[in-house]
């Protein structure tokens, strides 16, 4: 796992822990300062997290 991915994972996790939008915004401003690409990636993951619903939460079933 690259250092980039680890950083992405860490910031994503930390961002999730901040429940209020303003807290999260402030955290991301600080954590991704000077790195708009990283910010974009984290935002994309946060968006995916919100939209994922029950994705993968149940084991795969095989409808015969």
């Amino acid at each position, binding site marked *: 796992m690259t250092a980039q991915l680890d950083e992405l994972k860490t910031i994503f996790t930390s961002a999730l822990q901040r429940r209020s939008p303003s807290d999260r915004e402030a955290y991301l401003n600080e954590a991704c300062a000077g790195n708009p690409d990283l910010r974009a990636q984290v935002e994309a993951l946060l968006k995916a997290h919100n939209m994922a619903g029950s994705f993968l939460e149940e084991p*795969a079933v095989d*409808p015969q």
Partner: protein
Amino acid sequence: MHEVTRILSAIEQGDPSAAEQLLPLVYDELRRLAAEKMAHEAPGQTLQATALVHEAYIRLVGSSEQRWENRRHFLLAAAEAMRRILIENARRRGRICHGGSLQRVELADIPLETKLPREDVLAVDEALRHLEALDQQAAELVKLRYFSGLTLDEAAETLGISRRTANRNWAFARAWLYHQIGGKSRPPTE
């Protein structure tokens, strides 16, 4: 049963060829069990990964196997085997649908009690291959949960990681895979 136990020990010893021996054995057993179950179940029944993997484990390894390292090797192989079975089935269904005379079904026509597959397993498989290259531990967690049917706690225990690490990896992997698939995780109606 003894054969699989021998292979599991070999894997634990670091024998690189042992894992390759395990997968076909587990694959064959899962296919056999799946066929048995389908022969006895009512038509339209879905195949439950958890029950199949558990039964394969009992038959191949035995219930007395306590060593978590061996459980881990087996369950990862079982996840990989289930994955292949599901992919093959999905591809076969895809060919049948494309070649046959099935009409395109509009969503409004589907009776409420019909279950659509929750995720496009082919899309998940492809996205998972990318994740494996980037983050093997997160990918293993997904495989154990999604293909072997383990709970997050069971998967964490199997992999020998903390609950906290498992939560972190799970949240990340889900979001990453969902994003990778492009949010279109449901298969098109056939």
